[in-house]
């Protein structure tokens, strides 16, 4: 399944939530879900070896325990039924994105090789908030393969100042010189 399809699922979920005026409930529920989604649970939900009925009963159990809205469990069941359980984290991420935009935040995706310090996070938020004129919601992701540096994505604007990018650019320019 392509990322755009997951975006469509997230958007559909958000639209339904908006109509039902339960976007906040869903956001809270999804945050709770995000906390407990570890590798083992993801493996269980995405494995084709596990019976669909077992996954359904697991989700029902989770719904009761975490107080998840039925919209969430229904959407998750659709993904699981299509054997796309592994895309659940992406769905949560997109919903958060849409929710934060709806709340007036500018959503900024930040990827770094290591965790950002509190000070760095603060500086980043402040600078972007000044630039965008809105509060900032940071979607942080740690990717050690970046080696160092930072990638910032604000809507269509992409700032890639990672070490990996610099090395790749250097390697490509060297190949280009050799070819010419």
């Amino acid at each position, binding site marked *: 399944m392509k990322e755009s399809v997951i975006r469509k699922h997230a958007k559909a979920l958000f639209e339904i939530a908006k109509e039902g005026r339960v976007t906040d409930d869903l956001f809270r529920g999804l945050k709770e879900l995000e906390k407990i989604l570890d590798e083992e649970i993801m493996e269980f939900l995405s494995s084709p070896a596990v019976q669909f009925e077992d996954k359904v009963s697991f989700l029902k159990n989770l719904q009761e325990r975490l107080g998840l809205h039925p919209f969430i469990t229904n959407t998750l069941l659709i993904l699981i039924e299509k054997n796309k359980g592994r895309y659940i984290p992406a769905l949560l991420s997109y919903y958060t994105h849409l929710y934060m935009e709806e709340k007036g935040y500018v959503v900024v995706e930040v990827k770094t090789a290591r965790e950002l310090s509190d000070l760095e996070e603060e500086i980043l938020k402040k600078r972007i908030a000044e630039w965008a004129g809105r509060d900032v919601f940071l979607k942080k992701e740690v990717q050690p393969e970046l080696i*160092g*540096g930072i990638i910032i994505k604000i809507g269509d604007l992409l700032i890639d100042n990672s070490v990996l990018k610099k090395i790749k650019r250097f390697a490509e320019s060297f190949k280009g010189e050799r070819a010419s």
Partner: protein
Amino acid sequence: MEEGFGFGSHLLFTAINFLILVGAIILFGRKKIIEGIKRRGRDINNEFSSLKAEREEIERLKIEYLEKLKGLDREIENMKKNAIEEIEKSAEAMRRKIMESSKRFEESLDRLIKAEYERAVSSFEEEVMDMAVEIAKRIIMEKLGEAQEKRFFDEALSCIKK
């Protein structure tokens, strides 16, 4: 006497009878005999003329065949000459064709070798480049300090213009 007279008269009578017979034959058969002899003479003349004509015909045929034979010899010579020329022409054409094919094959082989060489060099360069990138990554990972990280962070922030 009687005995001598008897034999002599008998011979005489026989001779007279013979002469009479000959005279009768000449008298009555002369015309036919002459005609027969003439006819025979004509036949012989005819046969002779016929044989002469046949001989002339044979002589003529002989000359004709001899001429033809000479013509055949010339034709055979020409055929031999033409055949040799054709064979030489074909051999030359084949030699040219083989030379051209060989040249084309040699050229395509050169191109193939060149392409393979360039591919091998390119592949080797790619491998070396990948190795260099991996080494660079490890070195940078080890050497990357707080100061560099801050510089990357500040650079990224500077891209967000007010």
